[in-house]
């Protein structure tokens, strides 16, 4: 791994991007801002799951325009919440001068030993965190504010107290960060690279209520969704990862069990990064909301996003005689078996 190459490229990024440039570029998009956030509709609200195709960006403006396309159209369709897959901030690394050689270095690392991989990964995170975070956070803050939309923006690897977390962010319609979640269930690759898993669920509090920021890997477990539901969440984002395929089939089960709206942002393509991604984007509700589709409100691997109106209040009115019993003593016994 050529550290000098990495560090000089990262240093050069401080000339390419800064907060003001990002803000100016978003302003230059001439976004027709909603006068105020969407009001509560008795028939539910529209939510969007993005199906992102990672591509190298030519320049900062290209990156911002691309992300804006994923937000602007759902906003025009009346969506109140748009959700992105995890780690999308890393796409900003493609803005680095000499990114091709850095990327080639990273690919070569796959063949090296674990210690080398960990060290290189740490170095990369440490080096790029500044500009990646700056571009990512400012871009999505500005987009959320400009479109008056809540954005579950995926996120980035975040270095804190010597530990690396895979962190997701939630932005309010005012562009403020209203939620952060460290990934709870790491992929095999992330474990190998020494990423630290989050230990608690930390939902964001938005105008739409609490929103849990989860990863696609949590879909295999009822616990995070049970906790989210008990914490008062109505929406859970299960963001797909470039490091593993998301099993969308499970999303409708989690939605049914906890009467949540589960939004799964997808990831497809990725050839330019040497990836072959095929995780669908989808929106899932308890079965009562869409009995004919088995709770699958919308799903895509080909479209850039899916938007659907969801009405949790109506779905919650449905009573299922087979699954509505509660036995908290079961859980008490469960945790007492520690």
């Amino acid at each position, binding site marked *: 791994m050529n550290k000098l190459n990495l560090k000089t490229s990262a240093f050069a990024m401080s000339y390419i991007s800064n907060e003001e440039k990002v803000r100016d570029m978003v302003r230059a998009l001439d976004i027709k801002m909603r006068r105020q956030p969407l009001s509560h509709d008795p028939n539910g609200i529209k939510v969007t799951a993005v199906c992102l195709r990672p591509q190298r960006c030519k320049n900062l403006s290209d990156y911002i325009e691309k992300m804006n396309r994923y937000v602007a159209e759902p906003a025009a369709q009346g969506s109140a919440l748009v959700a992105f897959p995890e780690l999308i901030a890393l796409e900003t690394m493609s803005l680095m001068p000499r990114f091709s050689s850095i990327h080639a270095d990273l690919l070569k690392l796959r063949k090296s030993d674990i210690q080398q991989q960990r060290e290189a990964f740490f170095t990369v995170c440490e080096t790029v965190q500044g500009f990646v975070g700056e571009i990512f956070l400012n871009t999505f803050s500005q987009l959320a504010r400009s479109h008056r939309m809540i954005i579950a923006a995926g996120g980035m690897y975040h270095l804190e107290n010597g530990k690396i977390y895979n962190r997701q962010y939630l932005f309010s319609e005012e562009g403020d960060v209203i939620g952060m979640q460290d990934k709870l269930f790491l992929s095999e690759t992330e474990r190998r690279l020494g990423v630290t898993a989050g230990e608690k669920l930390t939902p964001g509090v938005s105008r739409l209520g609490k929103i849990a920021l989860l990863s696609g890997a949590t879909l295999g477990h009822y616990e995070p969704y049970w906790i989210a539901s008990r914490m008062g969440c109505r929406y859970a984002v299960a963001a797909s990862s470039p490091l593993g395929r998301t099993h969308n089939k499970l999303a409708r089960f989690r939605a049914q069990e906890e009467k949540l709206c589960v939004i799964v942002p997808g990831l497809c393509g990725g050839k330019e990064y040497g990836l072959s991604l095929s995780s669908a984007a989808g929106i899932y509700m308890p079965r009562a909301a869409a009995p004919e589709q088995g709770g699958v409100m919308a799903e895509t691997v080909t479209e850039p996003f899916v938007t659907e109106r969801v009405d949790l209040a109506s779905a919650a009115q449905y009573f299922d005689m087979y699954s509505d019993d509660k036995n908290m003593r*079961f859980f008490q016994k*469960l945790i007492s078996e520690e």
Partner: protein
Amino acid sequence: MQQFKVAITNVLAAPPKGTDLVIFADQRSYVAELDSHQMLASAARYAVRNKVYVVPERFVAADSLCLCMLAPDGSVLGVQRACHHNVGMRENNLMRADEIQPFDTPFGKMALIVDVDINMPQCVRSAVMKGASFIISSQYLPLYDFYEDRINYSVVDAAVTNGVQIAAAIGMGGVITDAKGDFICDYSDDLPIAAVIEPQQTIINKRDMQKAYKLMLAHRELIDQPGEGGVKHE
């Protein structure tokens, strides 16, 4: 662990040839306490006569909805009380258990999941965490309330979420799934249905299950009220 053949049959119907384990599909919601001992005696004779392990009908005993497994010598190998009830059962003022207790068989550890417990993700998860590698479920489902998603939201969900194989008697029929939630035997009420099970073909991710359990521990404040389980439902 050796492979075994599991069959779901009508109550007391002869098992298919070579069957090791029989599960009875019963269209009644349960056998009343008054008749339970006779039903169990009859099932024990069936086990001895056919030299099979048998999971007979759901029955009420000691104010609990139960399911059991009998060995080929007619003895009781494992019993499980229901941890949750459907609305109809709740009217009967029955007790509820607070845990799933898997038990050893020659084919590996198994767990019995009684009635609507198959709809509760915590039940099968708990069984698998305690070492169960095969799940037997027996659920009452009236004909008029049966549709495909009933199986998806119960058996398929439990199988794919936990990476275990499941044989489930549902209403008048049965279904057997592999550890990915795909059907080894599609749902049918034209019984018997049978399949050979390889006990080692589970895809249980214990590490992530442990992580999920730790997450529950980290949020133990959410499990607050002494609930309704273990006491009569009001």
